[in-house]
């Protein structure tokens, strides 16, 4: 599974969009080992106004991303999580690290033309560190 990491986000939302993260929160929180779109909708409707099609689209996207598996059950699909929350977070953390230290992209970064950092760029880096510090403290 490969995801684009979302900067400035924490937890599940580093890799998942808001509604995707909410749905996975429900699935893992309620220990739903096998569920239909309607099951998740019933839980979410207690928290917010949300359309069936929105939930269906999002659940399908989670399936396409490989986080959910599915099998046909008559006219509908039954979905099941392919990873536990812990496994997902573990792989997320690994991906954050890989993004930073691994792969060709990082090597390309080291291959950039040597240029000394400007004061503005250093300010940006300091702001980034401060932001991460605040996120971790929150």
């Amino acid at each position, binding site marked *: 599974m490969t995801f684009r990491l979302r900067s400035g986000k924490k937890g599940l939302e580093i890799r998942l969009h808001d509604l995707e993260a909410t749905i996975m929160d429900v699935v893992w929180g309620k220990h739903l080992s096998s569920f239909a779109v309607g099951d998740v909708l019933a839980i979410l409707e207690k928290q917010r106004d949300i359309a069936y099609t929105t939930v269906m689209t999002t659940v399908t996207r989670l399936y396409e991303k490989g986080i959910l598996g599915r099998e046909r059950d008559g006219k509908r699909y039954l979905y099941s999580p392919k990873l536990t929350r812990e496994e997902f977070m573990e792989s997320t953390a690994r991906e*954050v690290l890989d993004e*930073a*230290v691994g792969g060709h992209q*990082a*090597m390309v970064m*080291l291959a950039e033309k*040597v240029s*000394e950092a400007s004061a503005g760029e250093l300010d940006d880096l300091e702001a980034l*560190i401060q932001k991460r510090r605040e996120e971790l403290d929150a």
Partner: protein
Amino acid sequence: MIEATFPLLGTAFVVLIVLPTFALLAKAGLVMLERDEVGGPLHGLNLRYVLLTGSSVLPIAWLVSAGLHQAETGKSALACLFDHDTAELCFEPGFFALMLAVAILTSSVGVMRKHRGARVSSTDAAHTLLRRVARIIASDPVLASLRDRVVVTDDDGFALGTHGLLKPRVFVGTAFAARLSDEMLASALGHEAEHVRALDPLRYLILQLALAVNPFGRFLLDPHAARWQAAREAHCDREAVILGAAPLPLADAIVRAARPGAREVVALGARDTAVLKFRIGMLLAFSERAPARCCHQGPSAFPVAFVLLLIALLLPHQTGTAALDVLHTGAEHALTYLWR
């Protein structure tokens, strides 16, 4: 035939043809290693180092050893007897080895000059900082290896760096340290502790010497050497965090070391924008999840380099010096051809 033909033309051939060829071969190996995405740019650091330095050091070691071996035994037989028609000892290979050594030493002078450490200070400010550093080291068992290994300097523009080849010491600039919190200074010392442990000043010196003696091949290897050095700095960051340094204070210290006024090449390696961004990104990631020793470094650099050097030095004695004879006769035939 002029006796200086082989020493002069042979040395020129080594510098212009042999060393650049080895640099090309090393580059091919480095490109393959760097393409290997497993582990990323911190992968195979030791192997990359051996390729970078070995491509200059090993052929030179073999040639000098072969030259001395022939001169010592007087058995530069084919080359000397064939061209000079004399059974006397032929000292040309010895002169060649001498010429090569002189060329190497000449090109090394500039590098050696740059490698001088900062001046140790004993002002009040320096004593105050030294007490602060001693307190930080005493309170952090991870930094125990730096006990009696940290000195302080008032040199303008000096931030933080490790100097000394066999017994390296960490130099801390008073002006730089004043801008760091204790936590930042402790993390930065953790980074330098890895440089001390791994004898990095010696590694860096050998690398720079290896590139300096290969003036026509170094343009092939310079980008790889810069990437290796950047990766080595990142490796020290990671080792520091693995051993307990706080990643965010270390990131802060690195950015501050890059600020004008406290900029120094070895100051936490914080010189280049791209490298800075890479290392800060890595440390931000480490603040979410502690790093592990992810990347295979290859066999330990110093023992491997030592064994290879020993082989290069002993090989002429064991297997003969035919390649030097070819170089010898080739140089003299080339001169004969030019004089016609």
